[in-house]
């Protein structure tokens, strides 16, 4: 069963890459904070960015969401969820901060 073994090795590599990337991104994020490398605003922004990238890495390498045709349903589902989450979280924060600011 040579082809199956090939497939296994390929997937093993994918998990390893995913794990390495996730570990690296996490490491950088912790290092930025622990080492106080930048100002507060820049830190928060880059932390958010790193988290976003890491979420994408997890989806790609651990949950196997990619652009292949056979996964379109799953990909569309995840993207739609992202849209809904963005609307809900973004809207909530906008509303709550606005109300809070007007009570100050």
């Amino acid at each position, binding site marked *: 069963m040579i082809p199956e073994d090939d497939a296994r090795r390929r997937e093993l590599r994918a*998990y390893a890459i995913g794990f390495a990337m996730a570990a690296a991104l*996490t490491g950088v994020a912790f290092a930025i904070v622990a080492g106080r490398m930048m100002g*507060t605003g820049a*830190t928060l922004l880059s932390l958010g960015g790193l988290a976003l990238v890491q979420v994408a890495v997890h989806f790609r390498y651990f*949950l196997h969401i990619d652009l*292949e045709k056979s996964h379109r349903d799953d990909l569309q589902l995840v993207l739609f969820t992202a849209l809904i989450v963005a609307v*809900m979280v973004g809207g909530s924060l906008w509303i709550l901060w606005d109300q809070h600011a007007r009570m100050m």
Partner: protein
Amino acid sequence: MSARRHPGLSVAPGDAHTESEAEPVIFGFWVFLMSDVVLFALLFATYAAMRAQGIAGGPTPRAITDLAGAAIETALLLTSSFTFGMASLALKYRDDTRRLARWLAITGLLGIAFLGMEARDFATLIGHGAVPQRSGFLSAHFTLLGTHGLHVAAGLVWMAVMFARIAIAGVDDRVRLAIMRLALFWHMLDIVWVGIFTFVFLYGATG
């Protein structure tokens, strides 16, 4: 071809019938997970508002952030995602129940260690009087982390059930499908944790 359908998570490769049975089950579980993600997203939104507006003179995010503890918890959970990946590979390519059980057991132990760390964190906070009843912020903190922790605990119970089923009936198609779903669940909890270590712990330490 059918083996590529859900890479790393396929039921017996090449069995078209089982494959067509499995597809709605896996897709359905994805839909459930997305519903769960919305639930977490709203807890995050509530937390975000509370950490700024709900301090009420109590401890601030910075005051309760233990960066070292968070780093250990993160390492535990991240590694457990990888070891579950190894379990999935054992399930898919090696019909080797021992290997599968071993990787699952390692994953479970990492999960237990993670919950232990989290419980220790909670105990420390409560010991310092930082109880959830103290302020809106602490309510949100405990609820967000507690909900994630409950999910991890549910995953562990699920894992135990899997062990029982493997011990009784071996790895049949239904067990395969269940482990595939458990894998999705576990990896998704890791993604939620990425949000938690970033927005709770790292943001907390930054101020």
